[in-house]
């Protein structure tokens, strides 16, 4: 065995999905992962939405390490004075094939990689691919130190910090405007405490998003997911704003933990894990060229993920793009043609699927989400409004609309508000 049909760089969701599909089709597949083991370096917030994992591994929830199902969503606007939340519980989300899964990446990625190996792919961990082997226009394999590995096609699934994609000349330098940074702690608590505190039963779980104070009003947000016996708590913020305001996400997370609303939820817990990661969420404009002769780019490396403010989804996009890349390679193998003409089929599959269609639908979201009012002013207005509606101080009440006017007065014009709402309508 001295050459491979395909070499995959990175064993995250995108890499595992593509390797699995190709290996199952009988192709000779080699996967490189720089982590000491698969999952060692991988992090995310916490929930997978949609049917993609089920396409790869039918009824995976029966044997894969799933923490909990997402049966409850909470969105909260946080200020120093209080919070207003929307709390959505769904009974349907608790029925197979389910809508969302709370997963810890270290466990889940390791499980996925085992399935990939079982399907016949070779997984080489602890090895970082340094460079692509290029002959003329064609990518012919990869290089690690002095070792060379040859293949018909290379699939880049290297995640957000996509150095090889850049080396291949497919993307330009990132700007801090295009990147968000996320930090997360895993906080251990007993199963019983979690279920009592979050009103959960059995494998039910909750996904919580926070807007406002948790980022000191900077674009971004906070999140909390219930695992089986721990909570994932984190903050995501726009990198450019962090730099501009000299704020560290680590400090934001520390503050977030001391907010009374959050403090109550994590009380008595012990932090067992801490991690940080970049998120390339600038939407369509940021997507690099996704293919060239002998090369395909998938997942975060291709900036194929969606952030609408209300949701941040990347893993499902990663799996879908990994599968699309694998299908393309299968076709190229049949034709024995790995030139960009055949590989352009990849772009076509993505265009016909939710991957590029969602990104198209929400193409105005990234710009809209940079509007600082969303994170600073609006949470305050909402909380104050709620405070005014519910406060009884013994005085005669005012009509609701008058109250609204009072809250808005001097802080935002009706026209500004109207314009933001209209933009929101178009963007998300």
């Amino acid at each position, binding site marked *: 065995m001295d050459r491979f049909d395909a070499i995959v760089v990175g064993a995250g969701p995108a890499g595992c999905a593509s390797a699995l599909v190709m290996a199952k089709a009988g192709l000779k597949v080699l996967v490189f992962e720089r982590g000491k083991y698969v999952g060692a370096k991988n992090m995310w917030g916490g929930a997978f939405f949609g049917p993609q994992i089920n396409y790869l591994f039918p009824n995976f929830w029966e044997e894969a390490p799933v923490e909990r199902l997402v049966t409850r969503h909470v969105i909260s606007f946080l200020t120093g004075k209080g919070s207003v939340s929307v709390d959505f519980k769904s009974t349907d989300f608790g029925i197979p094939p389910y809508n969302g899964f709370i997963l810890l990446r*270290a466990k889940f990625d390791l499980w996925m990689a085992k399935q990939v190996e079982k399907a016949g792919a070779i997984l080489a961990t602890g090895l970082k691919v340094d460079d692509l082997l290029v002959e003329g226009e064609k990518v012919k394999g990869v290089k690690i130190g002095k070792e060379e590995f040859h293949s018909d096609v290379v699939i880049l699934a290297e995640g957000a910090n996509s150095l090889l994609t850049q080396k291949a000349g497919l993307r330009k330098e990132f700007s801090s405007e295009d990147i968000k940074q996320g930090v997360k702690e895993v906080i251990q608590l007993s199963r019983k405490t979690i279920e009592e505190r979050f009103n959960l039963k059995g494998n039910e779980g909750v996904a919580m998003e926070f807007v406002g104070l948790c980022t000191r009003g900077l674009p971004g947000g906070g999140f909390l997911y219930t695992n089986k016996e721990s909570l994932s708590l984190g903050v995501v913020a726009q990198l450019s704003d962090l730099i501009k305001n000299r704020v560290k996400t680590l400090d934001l997370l520390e503050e977030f933990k001391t907010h009374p609303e959050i403090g109550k939820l994590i009380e008595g817990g012990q932090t067992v*894990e801490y991690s940080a990661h970049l998120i390339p969420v600038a939407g369509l404009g940021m997507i690099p060229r996704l293919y060239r002769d002998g090369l395909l780019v998938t997942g975060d490396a291709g900036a194929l993920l969606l952030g609408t403010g209300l949701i941040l989804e990347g893993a499902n996009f990663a799996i879908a793009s990994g599968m699309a890349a694998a299908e393309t390679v299968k076709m190229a193998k049949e034709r024995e043609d790995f030139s960009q003409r055949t590989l352009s089929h990849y772009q076509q599959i993505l265009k016909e699927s939710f991957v590029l269609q969602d990104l198209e639908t929400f193409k105005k979201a990234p710009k809209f989400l940079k509007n600082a009012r969303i994170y600073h002013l609006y949470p305050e207005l909402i909380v104050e409004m709620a405070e005014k509606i519910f406060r009884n101080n013994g005085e005669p009440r005012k009509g609701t609309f008058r109250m609204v006017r009072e809250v808005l007065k001097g802080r935002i014009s009706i026209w500004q508000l109207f314009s933001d709402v209209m933009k929101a309508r178009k963007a998300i």
Partner: protein
Amino acid sequence: MEIIVCIKQILDPDLPPAKFMVDKERNKVIPPEGIPFVINPYDALAVEAALKIKDEKGGKITVITIGDKSTEDIVRKALAMGADEGLIISDTIFEESDSFAVGYILAQGIKKIGRYDLILCGRQAADWDNGVVGSVVAEYLGIPIVTRAKDVKVVNGRVNVERVTTDGFETFELELPALITVSSELGQARLPSGWGIIKAASKEIPIWSGKEIETDISKVGKKASRNQLMRLIIPSYERRCEFITGEDLHEISAKLTSKLMERRIHE
């Protein structure tokens, strides 16, 4: 040169302490999910010592471990580093064997392999740190042993060993076959290369049962165990900070002294 290296799978010693958990009732360590087992680092050094000899003199290296099929991962790791053959000895009758029984099982396995010039083990396993197995294997095989080697060289059909002592090292020369246990002073174990991993991935790793190595069942398992684990606990560390104040240095140091005396009496 036929070299056999005994390796053991252990919990990753680099595990963050917060992930280390024990089941107090069953006196067992609960392996954390999502963090794979690793080769005992001392054993990885034994593999390294074997590879160095092979690099210089040629020969064949066989790694051998006891455990279920999941130990395949560490065997493959050793193969990826450059070992030639791997072997797992696996049987439910081995469960809860102590270090003596483990030494016996390995010796039985090695007898079945038959040919060997040199056997290498780690000086101890980094999980329980008993450091017994190597000696027991040598005893069962009736061959000379040197423990805690920082250097192992084969010269003219004999093996030269530098053995670490508290204040330096001793040099030994032994007839082959012999058993050497390797210490951390040997240096660093090499990382597997890409092609090493690829070749190791498709290698057959035979699994031998208790029967195949002609196990005397009275010598293995819980019943044969010579020691018994009484209690398994995670030590708790407590840190306290106290400021001692006073008028002058004299008073402060007097207070400090009496504080320290107090603690000596109490603890």
